[in-house]
């Protein structure tokens, strides 16, 4: 319970940090960039919309703490103002339309990369010095050094343009109407293959490498040697005795790994014109649509922080030492 409250506290704290970054950044920047934006839209936006922008970006005479409180209030009610690109659509609507795409794409890719990477890492550690162990880490060393955009461009060029096996853009064919039926779902999956493959290929190496090293450390532990001596079967030794414990340190890096995948998703969505939050984020930046940009940053942070919190809860269940506070020493 103490662990739960502690982690919940950290979740709330980091969320507050993300909100504060969002609030203070435009106010700290020289010449308040938001002010310039608002000045430019004078006469093109309704006075009410302008007024709310002024409140949001601190172009007002209110004291800072009052601005911050009303900003907090708006944020907790999901009120991020109106998007300028899609004026007068509320930022929240743009987010609601784009978030599912990113969650589906980055979420699935992360899960697949984690499972496959961890499994290959176990294999590499088990057959240490063997063929798998000498080839796999080298290959994944290269794949994990590849910038996301390069991998995406390469896949798009080879399998999209040259071979024509996969669609080159968007999340589904424009001739289809979105619906929960077989053909549409198949179409969506078909469009997701290349973007997801980009994220998976570039992310797998990190998991593999971390898992391999943890696994090798665990395999040297006395309890594993003892289990081996008493005749525990290889497979059981590998999976039940060693891999389960070796997996724990990998899980703690999950939050950071997820952050990287999100960064990759931003590039991948832009290259494949995939209508997720990353695509909208870059569009918002290019159009200097600060309300949309802030809203997207916050929702991306929220999603990553929440996922991290869930993994921590899971970690607490898997490793009693953490829950009881014994492992910190």
């Amino acid at each position: 319970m103490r662990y739960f409250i502690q982690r919940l506290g950290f979740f709330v704290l980091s969320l507050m940090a993300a909100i504060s970054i969002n609030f203070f950044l435009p106010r700290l920047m020289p010449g308040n960039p938001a002010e310039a934006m608002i000045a430019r839209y004078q006469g093109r936006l309704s006075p009410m919309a302008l007024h709310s922008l002024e409140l949001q970006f601190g172009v007002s005479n209110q004291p800072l703490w009052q601005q911050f409180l009303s900003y907090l209030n708006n944020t907790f009610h999901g009120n991020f103002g109106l998007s300028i690109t899609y004026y007068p659509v509320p930022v929240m609507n743009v987010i609601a339309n784009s978030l599912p795409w990113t969650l589906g794409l980055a979420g699935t890719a992360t899960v697949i990369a984690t499972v496959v990477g961890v499994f290959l890492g176990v294999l590499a550690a088990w057959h240490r010095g063997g063929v798998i162990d000498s080839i796999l880490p080298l290959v994944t060393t290269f794949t994990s050094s590849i910038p996301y955009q390069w991998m995406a461009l390469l896949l798009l060029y080879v399998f999209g343009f040259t071979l024509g096996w996969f669609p080159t853009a968007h999340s589904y064919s424009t001739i289809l109407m979105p619906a929960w039926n077989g053909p549409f779902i198949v179409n969506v999956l078909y469009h997701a293959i290349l973007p997801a493959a980009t994220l998976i290929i570039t992310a797998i190496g990190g998991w593999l490498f971390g898992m391999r090293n943890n696994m090798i450390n665990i395999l040297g532990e006395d309890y594993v040697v003892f289990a081996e001596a008493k005749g525990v079967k290889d497979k059981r030794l590998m999976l039940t005795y060693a891999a389960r414990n070796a997996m724990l340190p990998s899980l703690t890096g999950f939050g950071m790994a997820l952050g990287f995948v999100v960064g990759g998703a931003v590039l991948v969505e832009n290259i494949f014109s995939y209508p997720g939050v990353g695509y909208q984020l870059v569009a918002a930046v290019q159009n200097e649509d600060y309300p949309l940009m802030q809203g997207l940053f916050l929702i991306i942070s929220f999603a990553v922080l929440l996922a991290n919190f869930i993994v921590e809860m899971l970690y607490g269940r898997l490793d009693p030492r953490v829950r009881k506070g014994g492992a910190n020493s």
Partner: protein
Amino acid sequence: MTAVEKRKKFQGLKAFLSNGKARVGLIIFIFFVLMAIFAPVVSPYNPSDTNFAQLAAPSWRHWLGTTGNGEDVLSQLIWGSRTSLTVGMLAGVLTTVVAVLIGMYPGYRGGWIDNVLDTITSIFMVIPSMPLIIVIASYIHSSGPYVIVFVIGFTGWAGGARTLRSQTLTYRNRDFIIAAKLSGASELGILLGEILPNMLSLIIHVLMGGIIGGIMSEAFLEFLGLGNSSVISWGTMMYWADAGGAMLMGAWWWLLPGGLAIAVVGMSMALMNYGIDQVTNPRLNTTPKEKVRKSSKSGGVEVVKP
């Protein structure tokens, strides 16, 4: 520094170089650094010269072909290494310095400073850095490569700080630290004279992670058009190739070199990391002497056999 310490350090270097992967990594990295330094000498043409045939495929005259604007791709690649490596190294050094300050000192000191800074580190570790970099870059208009260095330095230090802190904690109560304390060494003296030398390989590890992170982040921002696209770097090469429709015209020679160079430099860093792991974590050794684990797999506890 005593003679023993010196020999120890030399041994570390030797162990590092005895690793084949690390040697290959070092050679690749040195190759790229030399390329950046001698760009004016080795580059066949002026990288901004647009007087060549547009979109020409690789040939003897243009080993990597030309861009849609008629620039020589190889020359751009060579000159681009200057910007990309410089930004990467500066960003790497900056993140490492911040990581040492925020990770090591409080880790050694303990107390409330440590608690506060550790919490801040945790927060920066989970807030997704790439979107944060985008947001910061969009507020700072006209972000040239050196502004990018600061943005990366501001966002990329957390992982390194965490690694260094946990290692510092293990030193805090060691005998030699206590001995130094009793002999009246100052806090800073202990930190720099006793702990830092022991953590050198880990710091280099963090530094290399920072360098490749810096190169990647620069390419990330430039590719999204958030940097200064008139600067020649590996990131802007990809940006212009993508924006110029290299893909539609099948100009793979324009599309691929920039990213490939980043991948190869990244790989050289990872290879050198193998060598450093070898020095810091002997269990990862796969030299014959250490293959006990493998032989013990056939059954029995051969680990104790001579």
